């Protein structure tokens, strides 16, 4: 059982006009079961502003062509937009060069890319890879597959009852055998923001590279890869206002240069003979086949939008919103919240009495509230907490304090309905 240290948060102390931004999101005007939609499933995917939707439409209406192949006008526009998006992403996360931005299908593919192109070259039998026990399946399974194939061993940093990492264990397992640390920046279950700078410093002291799963952090926090000094970072556009089907692997130049190719095909080659080939320059070496061009256009528009709102404003506002929600939730009898790290983001996993998350989320859906129920792609966390599932509410900057109040009211109604 965990409880959040009492936080005396009054409603809204910073100036942030979530209502104004909501106007840009057509879907937030939807009704479900005849009620206004209260979308609290942002850790799964976020909604898209008009600007992103327009960028996708405009690409298909005005610029559609394949990239890097055509001499014609549309081909040039498509290529300029696609490569422009790469620059846009690089600037957003503070990468030195846009060459360090590899477009993938999302976080999952970005991690698989490293496990394959870096892992299969550098990880050998007897080597160890350190993960945490709070990883999303996408930062666990690729390493399991690699470890099994090459005979390497996975080691894990455990979490405690607050959902924070145990540095004593980390110090013990970090050794000369460690080849890589792959760890989440922000937990999609506990909301914990892990002390990544400290982890990276300790790893680098031993010459060990670090891959960050930024799927939950990049959408909600100002993230600067140069400042963090991470070796790799993976994230997804769809969790930060952008379209599905596109994401990023950032890598340090030296790491990328040393890696094998990932998939083979068009775009990733330089010269090809029947029995051999040479590889294109980075980043194209890792982008075989026609990429998600429209997605890149939409992604750039999403980043424009986030920068206009301001990542620092987003973080501050979400922290107030989250603290307020947690405080109100804990006033409900029978409420258990999983995770109470001092540094946390807006993903809140909980259980209400013995109401099964499936029943609770179905009840909330009937009231217009979209939350997630299940194991959140983290079955190992559930097993350690000795529960089958949780319900999770997760916020973004377009959520309002009024929505939180409504959500709380519905939780109270659910308690009554299920006879708690």
């Amino acid at each position, binding site marked *: 059982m965990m409880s959040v240290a009492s936080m005396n948060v009054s409603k809204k102390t910073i100036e942030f006009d979530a209502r104004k931004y909501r106007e840009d999101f057509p879907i937030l005007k939807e009704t479900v079961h005849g009620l206004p939609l209260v979308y609290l499933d942002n850790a799964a995917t976020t909604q898209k502003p008009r600007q992103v939707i327009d960028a996708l439409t405009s690409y298909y209406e005005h610029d559609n062509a394949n990239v890097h192949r055509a001499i014609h006008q549309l081909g040039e526009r498509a290529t300029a937009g696609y490569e422009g998006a790469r620059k846009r992403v690089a600037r957003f996360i503070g990468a030195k060069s846009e060459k360090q931005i590899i477009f993938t299908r999302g976080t999952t593919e970005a991690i698989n890319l490293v496990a394959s192109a870096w892992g299969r070259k550098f990880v050998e039998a007897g080597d160890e890879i350190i993960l945490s026990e709070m990883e999303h399946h996408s930062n666990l399974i690729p390493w399991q597959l690699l470890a099994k194939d090459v005979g390497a061993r996975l080691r894990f940093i455990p979490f405690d009852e607050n959902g924070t990492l145990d540095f004593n264990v980390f110090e013990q397992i970090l050794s000369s055998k460690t080849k890589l640390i792959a760890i989440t920046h922000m937990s999609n279950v506990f909301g914990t923001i892990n002390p990544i700078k400290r982890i990276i410093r300790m790893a680098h002291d031993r010459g060990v590279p670090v891959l960050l799963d930024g799927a939950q952090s990049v959408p909600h926090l100002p993230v600067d890869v140069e400042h963090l000094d991470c070796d790799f970072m993976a994230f997804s556009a769809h969790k930060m206002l952008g379209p599905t089907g596109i994401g990023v692997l950032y890598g340090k130049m030296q790491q990328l240069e040393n890696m094998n190719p990932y998939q083979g095909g068009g775009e990733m080659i330089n010269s090809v003979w029947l029995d051999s080939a040479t590889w294109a320059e980075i980043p194209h070496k890792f982008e075989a086949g026609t990429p998600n061009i429209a997605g890149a256009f939409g992604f750039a528009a999403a980043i424009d939008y986030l920068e206009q709102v301001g990542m620092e404003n987003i973080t501050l506002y979400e922290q107030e919103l989250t603290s307020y929600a947690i405080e109100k939730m804990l006033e409900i009898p029978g409420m258990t919240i999983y995770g109470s790290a001092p540094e946390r983001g807006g993903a809140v996993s909980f259980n209400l009495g013995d109401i099964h998350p499936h029943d609770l989320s*179905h009840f909330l859906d009937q009231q217009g509230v979209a939350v997630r129920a299940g194991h959140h792609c983290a079955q190992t966390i559930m097993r350690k907490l000795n529960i089958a599932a949780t319900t999770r509410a997760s916020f973004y900057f377009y959520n309002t304090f009024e929505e939180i109040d409504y959500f709380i009211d519905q939780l109270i109604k659910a308690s009554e309905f299920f006879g708690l």
Partner: protein
Amino acid sequence: MDSEFRELYQEIIMDHNRKPRNFRKMEDATHRLDGMNPLCGDQYTIYLKVKDDIIEDVSFEGSGCAISKASASVMTNVLKGKTVQEAEKYFNFFHKMVTGEIDHPEEYLDTMGKLVAFAGVAEFPVRVKCATLPWHTMHNSLHGSQDKVTTEENN
């Protein structure tokens, strides 16, 4: 509150969820099979004792949502003392009813009894797997399967 939702979680289901019947391990079972829904973590073991084609005893253990647990509980009540052939009939009816293939389930109250309480599931496609998990597990077990049932293969 949507009245269909209220109807779904009516008295029978809430009662069987809170006080599941035949909720126990069976030491002398002739059939035993696990069923799970990996998406939401529902997990049950169904036990059957079959002799001369009669289901002499049936029980279950495990955990999950109200719909799946009540479904397992009602199923055990209904099947006790029935023949394997009759069980087949109930299974088919239940499956058809919760997938919306039976037009007026209330007309079957006489023959199907409390099973009809689950008719409302048809309104909620995401809950069909919850209601059918215990039934599929029972069914596979009766037909001699040793393979754990998972909802991600059945549907």
